């Protein structure tokens, strides 16, 4: 009767063991080690199938002349030719330069804005939680959708951005185009990226600021350290690991930036905002130069892999705090 009332008890050995299916008994007999492998294996298998196998295939392709728009051509192994072509191509270096400029300026701006906001929010004024949530919204949105609607906002004449600028400066709103002008477009992608991701830096810096124990500041007060001195000797050094985390992650993400910029300027005007990912997309999915683009992709992989390595080391360092 007890077994009927408390079916859970049935699992305890000795207390009227019910008949188990064969599968259940087999599972019962599994060692911890077997369970560990059984649990990890599907994830690893999926990643091998979707990431590693294609990657190896791509490495093979990078040594070929495969071009999907001319697949009638016989597949030929060309050795390291693709890599040589890429590394000696001035255009590729130009794209890398464009990308580096974008990464450096956007991350720098995000650090300034994000860290500044974090310092302000850390003052714990009334309602800070509500306003923080509002500020966080952009980074949760789809970068593609963001890039798309900013093209409306930034349109000369009809867009509110140019109109606002002209209200403040008197420059006619149709006299400049944020996305269509060679001198402005590189800054436009930095601006929109900062709008989207400064909150990310802010959130991580805020965690850094909150991890500093109060007693350190109290000790500094006792020693009559100025607010300036406290910032340079306590606040900044103790937030740096967190800042590093944010900077590394943003740098990696922006290095491979595709979606937002593709919709905002699609690499233009001309190729002023053609980041490496956009250029890769053109080579692979418009010109269909699969062999060549595989080689370029591998160069990007190696770069990101190296950066990811440093990132994970920083992650683990922050975790110990």
């Amino acid at each position, binding site marked *: 009767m007890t077994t009927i009332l408390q079916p859970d008890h049935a699992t305890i050995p000795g207390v009227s063991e019910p008949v188990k299916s064969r599968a259940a008994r087999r599972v019962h007999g599994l060692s911890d080690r077997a369970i560990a492998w059984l649990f990890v294996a599907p994830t690893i298998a999926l990643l091998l199938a979707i990431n590693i196998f294609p990657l190896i295939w791509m490495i093979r392709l990078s040594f070929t002349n495969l071009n999907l728009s001319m697949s009638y051509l016989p597949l030929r192994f060309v050795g390291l030719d693709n890599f040589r072509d890429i590394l000696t191509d001035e255009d590729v270096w130009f794209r890398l330069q464009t990308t580096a400029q974008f990464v450096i300026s956007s991350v720098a701006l995000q650090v300034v804005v994000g860290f500044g906001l974090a310092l302000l929010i850390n003052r714990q004024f009334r309602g800070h939680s509500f306003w923080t949530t509002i500020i966080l919204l952009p980074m949760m949105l789809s970068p593609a959708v963001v890039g798309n*609607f900013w093209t409306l906002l930034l349109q000369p004449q009809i867009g509110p951005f140019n109109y606002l600028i002209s209200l403040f400066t008197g420059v006619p709103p149709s006299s400049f185009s944020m996305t269509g002008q060679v001198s402005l477009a590189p800054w436009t992608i930095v601006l929109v990226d900062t709008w989207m991701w400064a909150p990310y830096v802010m959130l991580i810096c805020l965690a850094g600021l909150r991890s500093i124990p109060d007693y350190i500041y109290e000790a500094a007060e006792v020693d009559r350290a100025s607010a300036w001195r406290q910032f340079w000797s306590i606040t900044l050094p103790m937030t740096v690991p967190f800042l590093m985390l944010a900077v590394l992650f943003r740098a990696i993400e922006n290095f491979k930036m595709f979606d937002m910029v593709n919709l905002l300027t699609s690499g233009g005007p001309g190729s002023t905002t053609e980041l490496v990912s956009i250029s890769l997309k053109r080579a692979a999915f418009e010109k269909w130069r699969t062999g060549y683009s595989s080689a370029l992709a591998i160069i990007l992989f190696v770069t990101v892999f190296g950066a990811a390595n440093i990132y994970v080391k920083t992650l683990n360092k922050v975790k110990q705090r």
Partner: protein
Amino acid sequence: MTAAATRSTAHSIVEASPRTKAFAGGLVILYAVITILPLLWIVATAFKSQSDAIAYPPKVIFEPTLEGYVNLFTVRTRQTPDFIAKLPPPETWYDKLVRKRDMVIAGPSKVVPRFVNSLIIGFGSTFLAVFLGTLAAYAFSRFRIPLADDLLFFILSTRMMPPVAVAIPIYLMYRQLNLTDTRLGMILLYTAVNVSLAVWLLKGFIDEIPREYEEAALVDGYTRLQALRKVVLPQAVTGIAATAIFCLIFSWNEYAFAVLLTSGEAQTMPPFIPFIIGEGGQDWPAVAAATTLFVVPIVMFTVLLRKHLLRGITFGAVRK
């Protein structure tokens, strides 16, 4: 007591002075308002008529209309006024709205199928990623796995890879397997990307559940699996839910894979929205309407996730 009183009124870093607070608050609110303006502009544009949306100077005050939403959900054809006059009277409010512009509704647009794709692919990949991720995270958290750190790094590094670069071999592979432009293909791909986040996040959550609970259950005669199901999972429910929302947001927002690997059947919302075309270019009210509908769930999730946001964006490393 006097000492305590002076301390709270004087400058203590722990508690900022009211003046500093007001100043900081003012600046933050200013930034928040500037941040939210572009979003509000889009929400407003969705209620503008075509001509109001592209008016110069940009219109802040306008007569709201649902045309944008109607245009989003329908395909229309332009007709002569004579033809429209001969038609039977409009049956619905949206028929009426469209006819005012000398148009007739020809059928539903593709937005609903695209939305459904986003939902199916989003929930499908989230479910799979969280399921696989929970198992793997439990194993990494509780068992000694050889080379665990290297495996975890490998898992995370797959997420860091540039999507355009990953898409090249996936495109070729999917072509061979007939998975191009299928929901299954997209679900598998997003699962692979999400599972890395799920493993890292969930490992953090499970690490926080004291081992003693399970050990007590094991002593009571539970098997490992029963202990996982009846002791660990109930404790990890919040973490699992937060992880699921993060995975869902990723799949929902993803663009690069979607635009490169789907073209019709399995296309999701992000590659679809920019190509909502009216007569003479982008139909901005309809685009804005689609954007609004697309973004609303994200805003809700952000509010829900607020407490776990930091964890989610740092792969579980920063917990506060």
